């Protein structure tokens, strides 16, 4: 299994752990072929697609669909390490400043045009202008396309994590045809190089994709891995149907109107467990449930009050009610099993010591100032967690006030007002990309916790990016996580699972952050 032809050259080489968890391949190690072709795969997804311009969206709902249409130079494998996709290989110069990508030959876009380095260059230039995560390309000095199959990036300064960032699928740098890349945000035709091509979109209804017959799978792989690998479209069409109502999604799956769904409510999953027509596919570590603590707004400006909240909580009760049981207790800002998973600050997680909490409150001179828990009604598990937490805080004598608004309003209040002490959110995609993504919201300049300047944190944060070795970066991340816990920047509650499910005649479906419908087929 030669997943990474060029792993030695990758600076994040240490992140490349043993891969082998994905699709059980035949012993002959032959490349994947569809045991059965055809059919319309109808997948029920929970959220409206807000736009399919991937340079301009970080929404999961968009990624669900768009990852089937578009591809990038590099993406992430099953264990989240960077792999090549449209790039055949890449080299880094000895000074670490020049990245030379060789493109895979014979790639065509859905409009029939061959992909060349001119398209790559245009796509990167577009991303530099409008890409949401264009900070990734901040250190770029120049980009050139010396010949049709070569793309060169020169950096101003050395960025050891450049490839990790470049391969991120949060807001992926997907490759568009040059003429599309000349267009404004959200104005493009949806043309990519992926195994499925865009067919029809009825907003609020569905997005339909068709098999792209001229797709060339990546011969460096045998099967799928992460968002890359040897991808084959087995279905004639894939329909992402927007079904917001969880009950309707489950019912649709049961009746066979839908062949696959995301986000089955836990209670329904318990019931479906015995249904022979349905396969439940839990995605562990969907997101880290977290409440950000406001360090500039009283009374949580006092460390004592923050520590009281931290040690007074029973995470098991919070997570059980928040998710109806679909959770794992985890202190970390990385998921267990991730290369960067560290222990820093663990002793402050799930302490559940009411007496100690009361003592902290007394020492901090707390006398009944309201602690506002700002949560939203759109994400039920955040709302549930806040409700349970507020009751637990009342038990230790904190005057907890629950403030429930819709998600956009809660974001706005978080950013523009001081009327909150705990803000409920989830770190989902960020941690899955890597430790930088996991902590970026809590360190300056974002600094959602509104913490006073902390040189120690700034130093650890820059070490996370500039340390040459994996061990060095991991140690730096451990320092950051420890600082977060010791100063109670945020209350980590645990990891949430998300249950996907398919009909039992759907074969080859392997859970991932985003449902992948390549190398998946209908049995018989």
């Amino acid at each position: 299994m030669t997943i990474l032809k060029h792993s030695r050259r990758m600076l994040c080489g240490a992140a490349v752990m043993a891969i082998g968890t994905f699709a059980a391949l035949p012993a002959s190690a032959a490349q994947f072929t569809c045991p059965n072709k055809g059919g319309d795969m109808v997948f029920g997804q929970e959220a409206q697609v807000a736009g399919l311009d991937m340079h301009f969206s970080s929404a999961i709902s968009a990624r669900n669909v768009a990852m089937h249409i578009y591809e990038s130079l590099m993406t992430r494998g099953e264990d989240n390490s960077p792999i090549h996709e449209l790039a055949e290989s890449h080299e880094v110069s000895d000074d670490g400043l020049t990245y030379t990508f060789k493109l895979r030959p014979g790639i065509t876009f859905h409009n029939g045009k061959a992909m060349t380095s001119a398209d790559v260059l245009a796509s990167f230039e577009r991303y530099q202008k409008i890409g949401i995560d264009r900070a990734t390309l901040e250190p770029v000095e120049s980009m050139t396309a010396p010949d049709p199959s070569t793309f060169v990036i020169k950096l101003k300064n050395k960025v050891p994590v450049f490839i990790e960032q470049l391969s991120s699928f949060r807001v992926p740098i997907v490759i568009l045809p040059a003429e599309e890349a000349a267009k404004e945000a959200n104005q493009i035709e949806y043309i990519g190089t992926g195994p499925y091509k865009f067919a029809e979109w009825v907003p609020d209804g569905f997005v339909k994709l068709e098999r792209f017959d001229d797709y060339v799978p990546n011969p460096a792989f045998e099967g799928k891995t992460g968002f890359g690998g040897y991808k084959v479209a087995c279905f004639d069409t894939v329909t992402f149907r927007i079904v917001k109502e969880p009950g309707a999604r489950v019912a649709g799956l049961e009746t066979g109107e839908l062949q696959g769904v995301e986000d089955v409510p836990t209670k329904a999953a318990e019931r479906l467990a015995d249904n022979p027509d349905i396969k439940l596919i839990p995605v562990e570590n969907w997101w880290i449930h977290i409440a950000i603590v406001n360090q500039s707004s009283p009374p949580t400006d006092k460390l004592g009050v923050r520590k009281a909240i931290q040690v007074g909580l029973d995470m098991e009760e919070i997570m059980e009610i928040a998710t109806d049981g679909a959770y794992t207790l985890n202190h970390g800002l990385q998921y267990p099993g991730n290369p960067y998973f560290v222990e820093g600050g663990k002793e402050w997680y799930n302490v559940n010591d009411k007496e100690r909490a009361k003592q902290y409150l007394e020492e901090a001179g707390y006398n009944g100032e309201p602690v506002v828990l700002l949560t939203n009604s759109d994400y039920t598990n955040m709302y549930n967690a806040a409700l349970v937490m507020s009751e637990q805080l009342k038990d230790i004598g904190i005057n907890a006030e629950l403030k429930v608004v819709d998600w956009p309003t809660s974001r706005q209040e978080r950013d523009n007002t001081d009327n909150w002490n705990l803000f409920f959110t989830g770190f989902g995609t960020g941690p899955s990309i890597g430790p930088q993504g996991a902590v970026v919201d809590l360190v300056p300049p974002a600094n959602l916790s509104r913490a006073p300047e902390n040189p120690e944190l700034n130093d650890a944060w820059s070490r996370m990016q500039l340390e040459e070795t994996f061990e060095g970066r991991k140690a730096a991340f451990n320092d950051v996580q420890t600082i977060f816990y010791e100063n109670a920047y945020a209350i980590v509650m645990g990891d949430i699972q998300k249950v996907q499910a398919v009909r039992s005649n759907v074969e080859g479906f392997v859970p991932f952050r985003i449902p992948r419908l390549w190398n998946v087929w209908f049995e018989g």
Partner: protein
Amino acid sequence: MIRFIAGRLVSAVPVILLVTLISFLLMKLVPGDPAMIIAGLSATPAEVEHIRQQLGLDQPFLTQLLTWYGNLLQGDLGQSLLLGRGVTTSILERLPVTLSISFYALFLTLLAALTSGTLAALRQNTWIDQILMSVALIGVSLPNFWLGLMLIILFAVWLGWLPSGGYVPFLEDPWGWLAAATLPAVSLAMLQMGLLARITRATMLEVLRQDYIRTAKAKGMPPWVVVGKHAFKNVMIPVVTVTGIIFSLLMGGSVVIETVYSIPGVGRLMASAILRRDYPVIQGGMLFVAAMLLIVNLVVDVLYAWFDPRVRYGRDGD
């Protein structure tokens, strides 16, 4: 008649102007921000600001208002912030969905309401009357979203007869459409059914007391002929007048019902636009629905005036 219609049209102008203004002002009070929704769960403030600029949400209030009216004059309701297409397109492509279900609901309403109302009137104060009118009253009193959920449980989950949601275009698959549209149409129709059944009954009772009906009956005409030939025609007048109200109820109801049944219609478009702060869609959608209702009411007025010439004169703008 032409003068009457012209007068009606002229009096609609200030209302339309006010409707556009209300539509615009309403959304300026909204505390949320669409940029944040596009940015997703863990976007940084800088990202959000970037999106906001891209979408022109950072423009001053007056600029946005002038742009709104300027575009409106050109028949342009603006671009959806989230759907990647024009508001007019978004509405028009969903309109057939909402209209087809609304007309289905209207058909069910008329069918059930006229027959049960007439029957109840003919059998006044018998058990038939009481049962029918109790059902009508309960229909008026049921919360439609709850009824929708209960119907899903009963017919989709327990009995498995009908799908629990979704929509199939009529032209693609008429039977599929019928299956998918039945529960939503019933949920939508229930309120109007009750309303109209009661009106039908009351009007029918009134008509049956009229002299000419009594004469017809006295002449020995069979009751069904009396009802069919004479009474029914008279009942249609009040029915026509409540059409505007029924249409308004259907449009309002579809916001809820299309959400419950995951139907990609105008109602759901509005509901999700409101929750997702897609200002142009909310403004354009409100305006569109209001304009549609104004036209319906205008047509109703004209029809009414046609039926009943007294209306053409001396009615006081009511």
